[in-house]
């Protein structure tokens, strides 16, 4: 692995991943999910700063039921911007890695079923759009030695306040043995191991990471 580009709003998972890879002497660059990221991808000079791994952080959009036409429009606009931003950056990421000899692209999505247990800032519209885009694009770009996958995380327990965590655990106590606390560091380590494998035998996949509560139900 020569270099990693992290795209998305800062969060604990990306921060842990950055620390882990920096310790391995991998160059890590970070951009938000905005025009700045798209510009960076489009004009990246791989000769100066080699890149062969790109990660898209998760997106979250408030999902209360809109009541007025204005609220409906705002929500639709937010989703439109999120999905378009992802697609345009995914395209630019593919072009970048294709012209620099290949690599890995990972899009992090959130499996949202746990929102039935407690309020989670999930975004099923964005997550499912990402998954379908990744599956489709992976088939097109695999021949250029670029592997594109999703890491589908059920939920990050470190972000769950302790009192909510206990309530949730008690509500599904029949599964208590499954609902043991997993640190974000364990997700980060798992992804880090995948990034470190140059001959990754995975493309166009949605890789579930979690505790078996639910799994990618449609």
């Amino acid at each position: 692995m020569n270099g990693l580009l992290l795209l998305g709003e800062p969060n604990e998972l990306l921060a842990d991943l950055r620390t882990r890879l920096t310790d391995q002497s991998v160059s890590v660059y970070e951009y938000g999910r905005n025009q700045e990221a798209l510009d960076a991808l489009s004009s990246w000079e791989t000769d100066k700063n080699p890149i062969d791994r790109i990660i898209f952080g998760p997106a979250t959009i408030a999902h209360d039921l809109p009541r007025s036409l204005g609220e409906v429009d705002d929500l639709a606009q937010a989703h439109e911007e999120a999905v378009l931003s992802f697609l345009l950056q995914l395209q630019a990421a593919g072009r970048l890695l294709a012209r620099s000899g290949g690599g890995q692209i990972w899009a992090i999505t959130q499996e949202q079923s746990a929102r039935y247990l407690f309020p989670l800032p999930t975004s099923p519209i964005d997550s499912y759009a990402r998954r379908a885009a990744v599956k489709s694009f992976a088939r097109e770009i695999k021949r250029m030695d670029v592997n594109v996958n999703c890491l589908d995380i059920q939920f990050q327990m470190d972000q769950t306040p302790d009192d909510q965590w206990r309530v949730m655990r008690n509500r599904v106590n029949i599964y208590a043995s499954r609902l043991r606390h997993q640190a974000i560091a364990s997700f980060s380590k798992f992804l880090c191991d995948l990034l470190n494998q140059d001959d990754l035998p995975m493309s166009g996949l949605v890789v579930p990471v979690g505790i078996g509560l639910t799994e990618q139900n449609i």
Partner: protein
Amino acid sequence: MRKLAKPTILITGASRGIGAAIAQHLATDGHQFALCYRSDKQAAEDVAAKVEAKGARVETYQADLSDPQQALELPVRVAHELGGIDVLIANAGMAKDGPFLTLTSEQITSVIQTNLSGTLRLAGSCVPFLEQSEAGRIILLSSLGGIFGTDGQVPYSASKGGIIGMTQWLGELLGPKGIRVNAVAPGFIETDMTMQLNQDRIQPFLDFSALRRIGKPEEVADVVSFLLNPGYVNSTTIRCDGGFAR
């Protein structure tokens, strides 16, 4: 609360293909229809005539769902003129196919605006009227591409994947209000759009289908008809794909 003796059904993309088949299929039940089309008024009126011939009341509406204002206002127009909306069947969609690395941002944007945010605006604007119905229904048209992915159709697949997420999200929020939200994901269906493809493009779909044939629009309409009275089925996307790559 509106009774469902003569439910009003709003269908978008109703001038041809799957939308037209749905309208004609459901017309046997004697419903009241609002058929929406984007550009082909004559085709929409032809479909309307066939639906009316089965005893249903029909009005046609022109709207371009990629236009935010038109997507938001369509349900308001329909409810005002027909007295409410009981069922939304969001079928309108478009594709801009091609290798993803070669697509322009304008092509990608147009697909997302029509298929995803246009549908979200339409569905959101319908909700207040569906809440007034005895049994409101939202039926969204996704695609096999939204589940399985389709090379050469990255934006289209993304938009249809988003529809699956929208189905789960709206189903959760509207279920307690008595509104059922479900989606259909058609596989390779015989429409004007797919019939323009050459055999090389069609054959893989046939090879991957357990039924080894293209689906018919009427077969998608059958699933939509079921979803009008789905019982305990909610927040679900039903695949109608002949058993594609199981």
